[in-house]
């Protein structure tokens, strides 16, 4: 029993220390560097490191030098076995309103060790409310519209079944 306790303590200490000392801001800069290779740049107002999280405020998304979107807050959170990315108040440039939904109030992407090969997403905004999943094993994304808002501009990319509108794509 002593041995089990000791092992549990060591695992807990390692797990906690890994998260504590994780260079979160540098990991974000590395993500920025990877995106920059695709001509996508993120300009942010502030980066705040937490114990298990990283919060980035007022992010402007540039694609090929064009400011296409603004995000009020990006929150990364990880416990290693469970991670999430929360996107708050995403506003797309007016020029793109005819092509993509204008606002996303909240979008939450989550990954859990219970299903390690998939990422799930829940979002709501001017398009309504959506729930979806990206599966790495099946190489497929499916997003279901739980509540339908203004989807006129994206309707050509959507399909409809008995449950309602959904978006499906293989990658």
């Amino acid at each position: 029993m002593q041995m089990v306790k000791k092992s549990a303590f060591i695992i807990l200490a390692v797990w906690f220390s890994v998260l504590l000392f994780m260079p979160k801001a540098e990991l974000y800069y590395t993500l920025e560097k990877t995106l920059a290779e695709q001509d996508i740049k993120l300009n942010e107002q502030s980066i705040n490191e937490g114990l298990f999280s990283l919060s980035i405020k007022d992010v402007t998304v540039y694609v090929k030098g064009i400011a296409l979107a603004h995000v009020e807050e990006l929150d990364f959170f990880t416990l290693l076995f469970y991670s999430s990315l929360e996107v708050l108040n995403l506003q797309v440039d007016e020029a793109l309103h005819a092509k993509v939904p204008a606002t996303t109030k909240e979008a939450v992407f989550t990954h859990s060790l219970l299903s390690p090969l998939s990422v799930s997403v829940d979002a709501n905004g001017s398009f309504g409310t959506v729930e979806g999943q990206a599966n790495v094993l099946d190489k497929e994304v499916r997003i279901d519209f739980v509540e339908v808002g203004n989807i006129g501009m994206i309707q050509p990319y959507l399909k409809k079944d008995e449950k309602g509108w959904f978006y499906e794509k293989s990658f």
Partner: protein
Amino acid sequence: MKNLFKPEMLKVLIGILTFLLVLKLVWFVVQITWLSALDIDQQEDQSSKSLYYRVKLTPNNIAAPQKVVHQTTKKIAGSIKEIKLLAIYNASDIAVVTVEYRHKSKVLGSGDIINGFTLEGAGSNFAMFSKNSKNYKVMLAKNAKSTSTSSIVKTVPTPKTRVKTKKPLGEVTNEGDIRIIDRSLLDHYADNMEEIYKNIGIAEIKKGKDLQGFKINFVRKDSPFAKLGIRRNDVVKSINGQEITSYNAAFGVYKNIKNVDNLSLVIMRGKEEMELEYEIN
């Protein structure tokens, strides 16, 4: 206190601290080996500026009389002349008109206010506005003929007639030295970006990693773009005084294109620099 200084406890404490130090060191090595320590930010494009607008002066060189000054001050307060009537839909219970105000089309219903004028009603070829208990009659614009014949509906429109009103697309006409672009055509391409690339190919010109400008790859024959006078291999230098050396500059032009009355395109054709002028009507 006694327990803390026990050799076993000290050993454990030193062990934990060593472990934390090793872990921190591991992260440090990971950080300097694989991770980026620098924040990559997009530099704001300082070169971009708002589009300039060409203003047509009077054909003669005589200075404008002082009265004109009075007229302009009146305009600021809101002149009926700023409202151009484009189309009328007149039913028994409601009048709906399409007007152009400050280069933007607006649809008004009875009682709606524009530039301080309230829409009271409409006839077959005019709309009646009121302001300060005075009535103003605005006649249907003459140059709206081509579109208005399809958009003026005297009876209650069926869905079919409504579809028809959206259809007509203007074209580029050549009138002497200047080419005239129909605004509906311009608006159509501004709203349907993908249609642009069906008719014209635009490629980047790069020097190393830096973008230098844009080159015309192809222009589809008989397309409105061919009528603009641009050809394959032309290099776009500037549009309305805005140098096109970045995507941001090009996007800026695209965003403002609906608000311009004139277009001036500077291109390089071979070694020759050319300026192409267009009027938007």
